[in-house]
Each structure stands twice: as C-alpha cells, then as structure tokens.
C-alpha cells in the first residue's frame, strides 16, 4: 500500500517535471524565435544606396530627384548607435521651379534597429519644416518637437508628448525594419503590420509579400521579393497592390525598385548604385 503511494508520488513528480520542462522549452523556443526575428541581420554601417525618383506624367517618366539612403555608426559616451539617413535632392533643371532639399534621419540600436531619435528636416520650394522625436521606450512616450518658419523668416516651436505603442517606429527605421524581415520564410500572401509615427500621428502600414520576380536594374538583373505596401485609413498611397516594393532576394534585401501611386499621379524609385553592403 505504502509502496503504491510512493510510486504514485514519484509518478506525479515526473509528470509535473515533464510538463514544466515542456513549458520552459516552449518559452525558450519562443524567445529564440523572437530574438531571431527582431535581430538586425541585414543592415551594417557604411551602406550607401543611391536612387533616381521619377514622376510619371501621361506615360512619360521625368526624373525629378536623387534619393540617397546611407548608414553610419554614431558613438556616444555609453552606446554605439546606427544612423540611418535619407536625403532627397532635386536635379538642377528643377531647382528653379521647385527646389527640394530633404533630410530624414533616425538613430537606432545596432542590434534590433529600435529608434531612439528621429529628425525630419525638410525644405521644399520655400517651405521649411523640422520634426524631432525623442523616444522613451520604457514609458512609451515620444517627446515631439515641430519647428516651422514664418513668412518673416523667424521660427516657431511646438513641443508635444505623444503616447506610442510598443512597436511604433518612425518612417525611416520602418523602411529598414522591412528589409530586416525574414521574407525567405514567408509565403505569398503573408502580411505584416507596422505602426509608423508621422506628423505626431500613428499610422498602420501593411506590408504584403506577393511573389518572387526577377527584374533588370542598373546594378544588374536581380531576383527580388515583390511586396505591396498599403496605408490603413489614409489616402496618401492610393489603390490596392499599386504601391510596390522590390527587395533583392538575398541577405542584403536591397530595395532596388519601387512604384507608388499618389493622389496626383504615380512615380518610381530606381536604384542607381549600392555600396558598403553587409553581405
């Protein structure tokens, strides 16, 4: 009788132990998978991508601006961060009509591409605007600063505190985070949502993997992942599956070509050169 009880207790302990180990294993597996998903395996400092932005007017494409996407390392006394910089500059022939000198930058962690500081400094045909977001991921707050120029040349500031979600990022770091997705594991039709903070408002961007396609670019013929991008509840990008992005189907996942439809027509972004790639 006692023997049976002892065996019963031992059996219960073994069952408990197995179920505990099972849970622990699942938790560990989840953590490992999550870390793999979020960890930066694509972007390195020193990368430089140059594009030509064209606007399609009645079927004829007109080159308007040069777009550059650069990464560099920024060291503070305590940390090392990655600076993601995007600039847009109109070509000389457009400067007299509509001069654009835009600068977008985001300072992100090297390992997980989490943004800590974002700046948008734009000058478009006499219109000037500066936006700055200082992230505090613990309190999930963003200290936002908006600076605009008055007609007399003086500037005025507007400070705001914006509550954000756990995964909210700015537009620049979102672009790089899309490149960091494990697209090779995705099936056509799979989609992923990104929350983007733009003009102090959170917007959801849906990225859908369509298929693989080989396209000819200035850096050669590349096999690419074709993605469609849609903005929920906004008219910025029009139509479904008409805003497309092609990322090379290799470890670098370079955006080589983009097609977008906006309320005043449609445009293209074509790669001109790519250097300093990680892989």
């Amino acid at each position: 009788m006692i023997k049976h009880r002892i065996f019963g207790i031992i059996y219960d302990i073994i069952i408990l132990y197995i179920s505990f180990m099972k849970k622990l294993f699942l938790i560990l597996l989840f953590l490992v998978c999550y870390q793999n998903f979020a960890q930066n395996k694509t972007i390195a400092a020193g990368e430089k991508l140059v594009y030509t932005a064209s606007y399609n007017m009645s079927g004829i494409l007109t080159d308007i601006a040069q777009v550059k996407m650069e990464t560099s390392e920024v060291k503070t006394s305590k940390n090392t961060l990655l600076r993601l910089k995007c600039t847009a500059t109109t070509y000389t022939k457009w400067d007299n009509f509509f001069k654009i000198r835009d600068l977008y930058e985001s300072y992100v962690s090297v390992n997980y591409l989490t943004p800590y500081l974002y700046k948008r400094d734009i000058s478009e045909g006499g219109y000037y605007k500066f936006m700055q977001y200082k992230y505090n991921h613990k309190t999930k707050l963003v200290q936002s600063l908006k600076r605009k120029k008055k007609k007399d040349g003086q500037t005025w500031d507007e400070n705001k505190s914006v509550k954000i979600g756990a995964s909210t990022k700015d537009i620049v770091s979102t672009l790089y985070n899309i490149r960091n997705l494990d697209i090779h594991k995705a099936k056509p039709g799979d989609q992923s949502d990104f929350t983007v903070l733009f003009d102090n408002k959170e917007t959801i961007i849906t990225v859908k993997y369509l298929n693989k396609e080989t396209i000819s670019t200035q850096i050669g013929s590349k096999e690419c992942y074709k993605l469609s991008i849609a903005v929920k509840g906004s008219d910025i990008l029009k139509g479904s599956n008409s805003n497309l992005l092609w990322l090379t189907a290799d470890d670098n996942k370079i955006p080589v070509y983009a097609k977008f439809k906006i309320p005043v027509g449609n445009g293209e972004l074509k790669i001109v050169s790519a250097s300093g790639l990680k892989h």
Partner: protein
Amino acid sequence: MKKLLITLGFISAILATILAVTPLSNLAIFPIIAGFICGIVIVFLSKKEKQKPKTIQYIFLLVIISLSITIYKGVFTTLEVGDTEQLEERDEENLEDSKEILEGLDIDEDL
C-alpha cells in the same frame, strides 16, 4: 473644319514650344505630334481647295523648333544634382545636435 484645325494646330505648336523650354521637355512630344497631324491635315485640305497653305508654315516651324529643343535636351542634358552645401550644413548641424541629445537619452541596446 479648316479653321478649327488651324486653331488646334497653333495651340499645340505653341504649347509644344513652351513645354520644350521647361524641364518638362519630355512632355512636349504630345503637342508636337498633335501639331504635326493638324498641319498635315491642313495641307491636304488646302490642296483639295487649291489654296496656298500659308499658316501651315508657322505651325511646322514651331513644331520643328520644339522637336529640335526636345531632342537636344534628351541627348545632351545629363542629370546633375544642384548645390547641396546648405543640405550638408544642416546634416552636420543635425549630427552634432543629435549626439548631444543621445547623450541624455536612456538607451537600452538590448531592446
């Protein structure tokens, strides 16, 4: 009919010339084609009526000028980025300012 074609031809030819001298010279090709077609139809109509097509000369002249400018621009104009000094200055200023801000931020590299 002929008057309408002359008006359309002139409008197209003038529009083509205006577009050809602007950065939108690529788009001048549409009014050039329209002006050219109108011109040819006017020539045929004038021949039928046995009249001398005087106005057609001006339409063709403007179309040829626009076409020459468009081809010249397409062949010889290279894409160049304008002055970026101001942008580079802002870039430097922003970087220095960002470094100062980042020193004061609570950064967790494992996030």
